[in-house]
């Protein structure tokens, strides 16, 4: 399959066209390869970050839950009052775009606003400090989560882009370029052959002409000999000498150069 070539007439025009295509394919191949390398680097980096963060997340969540238990110890069960005191989301996530080697990757940025007044007064009578500490630890857990989510989406996007790019690189390397090369070499061989054929044809014609001239010369010599003999014998014919003269002098119509 890799040995196929494009079906094309072997003309010089086609040769220039396909040479141009080949050049384009080579340039594209090297560019894509560079893109694939850049993506690979980003991929490895994201992978490493992802691993670290996932390991850290376990510990962070455990700490957050533990501080929740601590707060529950001091303040009793404040889950209901907490649920009631929520007004609007104090932590929001914005999506920004990052451009890596031409691939647009989403990045999540966390935006936090001040907590509403109702939350600040939670546990005023007892346990307030523990509740605020719990809030801090859960906030940091949330930060880790947002970061992790961002990394995860980046990972998936980079993975996809890397696959596509690698596919293109491989396609160029193993399918398109050989095909083009084959086509070019085929055209070149065809052209060469044609030249050779032409050459050979002309050579043959020249040979034939040379032979014809020789034959004519030989005949002419033979005739002059005969003529000489005839002259000696007193018979003289003009036609033979006229033919001989017109043969040796003047342009040969078959010879083009």
């Amino acid at each position, binding site marked *: 399959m890799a040995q196929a070539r494009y079906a094309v007439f072997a003309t010089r025009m086609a040769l220039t066209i396909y040479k141009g295509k080949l050049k384009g394919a080579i340039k594209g191949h090297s560019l894509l390869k560079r893109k694939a390398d850049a993506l690979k680097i980003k991929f490895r980096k994201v992978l490493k970050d992802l691993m670290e963060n996932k390991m850290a997340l376990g510990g962070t969540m455990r700490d957050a839950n533990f501080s929740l238990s601590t707060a529950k110890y001091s303040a009793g069960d404040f889950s209901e009052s907490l649920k*009631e005191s929520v007004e609007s989301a104090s932590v929001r996530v914005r999506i920004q775009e990052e451009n890596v080697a031409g691939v647009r990757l989403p990045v999540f940025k966390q935006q936090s606003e001040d907590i509403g007044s109702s939350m600040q*007064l939670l546990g005023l009578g007892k346990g307030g400090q523990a509740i605020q500490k719990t809030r801090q630890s859960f906030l940091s857990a949330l930060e880790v989560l947002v970061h992790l989510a961002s990394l995860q989406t980046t990972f998936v996007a980079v993975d996809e882009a890397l696959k596509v790019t690698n596919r293109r690189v491989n396609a160029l390397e193993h399918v398109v370029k050989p095909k083009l090369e084959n086509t070019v070499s085929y055209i070149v061989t065809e052209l060469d052959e044609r030249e050779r054929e032409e050459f050979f044809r002309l050579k043959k014609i020249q040979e034939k002409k040379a032979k014809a001239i020789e034959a004519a010369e030989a005949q002419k010599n033979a005739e002059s000999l005969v003529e000489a003999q005839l002259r000696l014998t007193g018979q003289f014919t003009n036609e033979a000498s006229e033919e001989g003269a017109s043969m040796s002098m003047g342009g040969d119509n078959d010879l083009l150069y």
Partner: protein
Amino acid sequence: MAGYGYLAGLISSLVPGSSMTFNIRDGYLEALARGFKGSLLTQNDYHNLMQCEKLDDMKLHLASTDYADFLQDAPYPLETSVIIEKCTERMAMEFKHVRNTSVEPLTTFLDYMQYSYMIDNTILLISGTMHNRPCDELLEKCHPLGMFEGMASLTVNTTVEDRYQWLMVDTPLAPYFKKCISEEKDLSELHIEIIRNTLYKTYLEDFYRHCKYMGNSTEEVMCEILKFEADRRAVTITINSFNTELTPDDRPALFCNFGNLVPHGLQLLAKATDDSNVRAALEFDNTWRKIYDNSGDGRDGSKTLEDLFFEEEVKLCKMAFEQQFHYGIFYAYFKLKEQEIRNIEWIAECIAQGKKDQIQRKFIPIF
């Protein structure tokens, strides 16, 4: 001369809570309370519980204490919330029994004890109804000791006026609500936490007055405990209200008018804006100064202020059992029971989350 002394002695003995006539009405219940006290978990029990690897082991160990039958029908696998629910149920059962077999004036005293839980429940119901939560969910979350008649009707009342009417008239907390709203502030304007704390302050002052009226040992023991409670709330509110919308001007409204820190300490606390001010305010009282100095921020094994408060409360409650013929032991016993349930919850959470080394941090041994 001797006659007057005799008469005075006779009169003082007729006041509720006096030693001579105490056993007539409340002797059985005091004995019952002391019996309950004996069934509180000991150091040994706690030691066993702390060795457990999983919550089911805890259930096994608790089965040898008084909690046995309550944990029998707990679903498998056991969760900390289930354990706590069952323990609280048991405490509620004990309380109901004591209350049902009590006579005046012990009944009033026990009612006073229930008011604090009622305040929490009412606040829960109010805020839940404001956010349109279903009625049965809210009633489930209420503390069993704080249930009273007519609670469900709060969730049904939809208009704001009806709700106020109900609050100010039909509940046992009516007088406290009246005080709370007397400053012409609309209930919906006030923050729910501020309402809660104002109610609690009014309740504490009322309780203190009642104990003073009871006289004799009850007054001695209970007033000591209540003073500590008032001071503790003052300090906690002050510290928790730094950098919040509760300004130093509004703060004094939440402070009780009794306690060891009155009046100088409270004045300083009201104006405090950070920890050094609080320290200066506590300078006047030995106990408080020691407590504040010993507190850390909870990391590296130091105890937080809250932990030290709980410890002090436990100490005061234990001392209540030293005397006889007073109602303080009921209060003390139920506070100790609460602390025990908190201990169990803490141990259970630590085991469930795999942080057994942290148990010692917050655990307060009772006996």
